[in-house]
């Protein structure tokens, strides 16, 4: 039957080309759209973050290894890179600046090989705890060994060394951004390719059922160890890019804080899908760089977002997207858009009220010096006046109430659609 033929024809590859081209295109045009120097650094950091988070997800999502110390590999990669960079400036070494990230990668690889030999012997909670311990040790040592880590001030370098190649000095941030973008693209492709190789597949198998793996000819520890080293390499590359971007590396790059951020945002982006960590990395930069600048309550927002996300979307942002893509694939997304609009509108209202209140509380606590007046999203609020508070409360009540209403309709619609999809699936399977 012709149906059969359609089934075997794989249009996937075309789709894949489109996706990759789109990705490259975004990387290419992003700095043309956002030109301020802050957005340039943010874009650069996103590129770096994407590589680290993807490499982290190699462990977490693909290998089921919960690591609390991934910053050790990216961080030591950064240190390797900065030392290399300084040797280049000192004339002791002759490699082009554009290859410094590879040096970082090799640094990460070596460290991962040494530490991984120990940590990957175990899995599960024990692995997690060892990485926690190793992370703390490395961080503490980094403050104790100023000779290598540069102490509190860290080690700085200058990326503008060597002969400019075709006018590229890496002085301007744009040039650094494009270097990062190129690395980001290549690493993303390579890590994606990894998931399609025998080792990548066995890593999934080890995640799912390490015991059985031993009975189909593979050594689980070996699989974990090799993958760990590869993840270490990519983390190191990201570390090397970090070096070029900031031109200074301090002990914080190996801190538990960093490792924690990788974990949190990889998860938030969605560890179950390959592209999840990419979203996670973008969010990470927004949260840590931008959010903290926009509001003093950023930690509170971050914490609450986390609670909510983990509770209601444990698969991360990526899974939310994929759920909708599935609906779209059955051509039923159209039916939802009014619901989405309602949800977004009511949610925004509620959030507006809530954040207005949070911001007012913070203003009272932190910015009294500036008087009771504060501006919030362009509006002037008087934190001592009743009207601002009443208004905010009203917004919350109205927003939450309407949100609940639209949520109910949405849930019902959603359930209906899922049922129809199930039915459709069964119909297709029966064919």
């Amino acid at each position, binding site marked *: 039957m012709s149906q059969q033929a359609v089934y075997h024809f794989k249009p996937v590859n075309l789709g894949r080309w489109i996706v990759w081209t789109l990705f490259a295109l975004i990387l290419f045009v992003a700095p043309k759209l956002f030109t301020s120097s802050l957005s340039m650094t943010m874009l650069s950091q996103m590129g770096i973050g994407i590589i680290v988070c993807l490499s982290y997800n190699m462990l977490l999502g693909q290998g089921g290894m919960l690591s609390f110390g991934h910053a050790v590999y990216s961080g030591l990669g950064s240190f390797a890179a900065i030392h290399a960079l300084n040797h280049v400036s000192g004339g002791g070494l002759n490699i082009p600046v554009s290859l410094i990230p590879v040096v970082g990668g090799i640094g990460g690889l070596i460290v991962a090989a040494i530490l991984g030999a120990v940590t990957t012997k175990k899995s599960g909670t024990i692995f997690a705890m060892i990485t926690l311990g190793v992370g703390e040790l490395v961080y*503490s040592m980094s403050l104790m060994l100023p000779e290598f880590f540069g102490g509190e001030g860290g080690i700085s370098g200058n990326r503008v060394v060597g002969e400019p190649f075709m006018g590229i000095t890496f002085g301007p941030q744009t040039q650094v951004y494009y270097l990062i973008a190129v690395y980001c693209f290549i690493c993303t492709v390579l890590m994606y390719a990894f998931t399609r190789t025998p080792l990548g597949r066995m890593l999934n198998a080890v995640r799912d059922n390490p015991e059985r793996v031993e009975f189909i000819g593979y050594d689980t520890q070996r699989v974990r160890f090799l993958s760990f080293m590869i993840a270490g390499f990519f983390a190191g590359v990201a570390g090397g890019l970090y070096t070029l971007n900031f031109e200074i590396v301090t002990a914080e790059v190996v801190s538990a804080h960093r490792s924690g951020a990788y974990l949190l945002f990889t998860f938030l982006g969605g560890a179950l899908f390959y592209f999840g960590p990419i979203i996670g990395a973008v969010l990470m930069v927004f949260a840590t760089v931008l959010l903290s600048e926009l509001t003093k309550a950023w930690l509170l927002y971050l914490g609450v977002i986390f609670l909510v996300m983990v509770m209601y979307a444990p698969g991360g942002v990526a899974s939310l997207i994929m759920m909708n893509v599935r609906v779209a694939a059955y051509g039923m997304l159209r039916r939802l858009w009014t619901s989405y609009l309602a949800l977004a509108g009511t949610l925004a209202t509620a959030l507006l009220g809530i954040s207005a209140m949070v911001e007012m509380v913070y203003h009272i606590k932190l910015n009294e010096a500036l008087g009771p007046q504060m501006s919030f999203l362009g509006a002037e609020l008087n934190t001592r006046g009743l009207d601002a508070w009443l208004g905010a409360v009203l917004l919350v009540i109205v927003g939450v109430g309407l949100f609940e209403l639209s949520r109910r309709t949405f849930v019902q619609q959603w359930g209906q659609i899922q049922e129809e999809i199930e039915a459709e699936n069964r119909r297709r399977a029966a064919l």
Partner: protein
Amino acid sequence: QKGETVKVAWIDPLSGLMASIGQNQLKSYQFVAEKLNASNPAGVKFEIISIDNKLSPAESLNALKSAADQGVRYVVQGLGSGAALALVDGINKHNERNPGKELVFLNYAAVDPDLTNSKCSYWHFRYDADTSMKMEALTTFIKEQADVKKVYLINQNYAHGHQVAKYAKAGLARKRPDVQVVGDDLHPLAQVRDFAPYVAKIKASGADTVITGNWGSDLALLVKAANDAGLTAKFYTYYGNFGGTPTALGKAADGRVYQVGYGHYNMGGVYGQLLTDFKKRFNDDFYSAAVYSVMVSLSDAMAKAKSTDPVKVAAALEGLKFKTFNGDVEMRKGDHQLQQPLFITKWQPVDAKNAYDVEKTGMTFGLVKAYDAYVSSTPSSCQMKRPS
């Protein structure tokens, strides 16, 4: 320049280990800016833009970018020499790569001597006295204390702590060769919860004096543990007055904690006025008086340069002599280190002469000795590169 608004970016932590200190300093800046906006020699208006650097050098650089985007030309920072070093480096590069958009860095508390020595920069000005200067004052004071015989050094294991230990040993060897250094301990930054073993060790060493550069909980916990174990040695500190620490010192530390600084709570005058107003407003202590020097000198320099252009203002700041809360001071041209008097104070109950009650403890830091600027002045190895 009259009537112009000058944006000053405050890049310091509002989260992390030093968040509480950071919030106090931010308020201090907002408070001083408000005072000066009422009247200042340059007739400009200051607007403080606060950016949380989370105590992280890398985040400080992000903050710098964002500040530059917002049209800021003046950056103030102080909490943590790590971030300061990163900022100096970042600003040097920025100014080199973006002529016409120069940034000036006014450092009010980061005390790593490197900042005005090997790492000195034309764009950096320091208003606090660095570790070596404070130690100079401390050791000069110790020189006169006959009862100091055995000294114990305990410090945080990072650059600042290393430097305190280093300068203490050098200073003592120079001024009081008879004093014995009976211990030199380093402990990790903000990781020790129980200082009892350290105190026991100090006790066992027979030390009568402890010199420490510790700050925050590392100092509070240390003194607390000493109180508990009945250790009677005297503590010479750098940061006894930082928010929260006085509370932890409490009455038990009466007479045992000395502190060196560029000012003190009971000096009256401008500072006295600032303290009272600040307390009335925020119910908090205005402990970083350097904030005032920073803003006053900035306005003076602008008046002198007749411009708010950072390049001109930086030139005017070099060697600027101005009057601030602790007298007539000078921003030394060679290394951009403010030359100012230093004071040794002692933790004691409030009395008629020393009436400022710190953190409602009924205690205060009372003056024991004042040193003129030249006493604590240290030579600099700075080879300043000035823009041509």
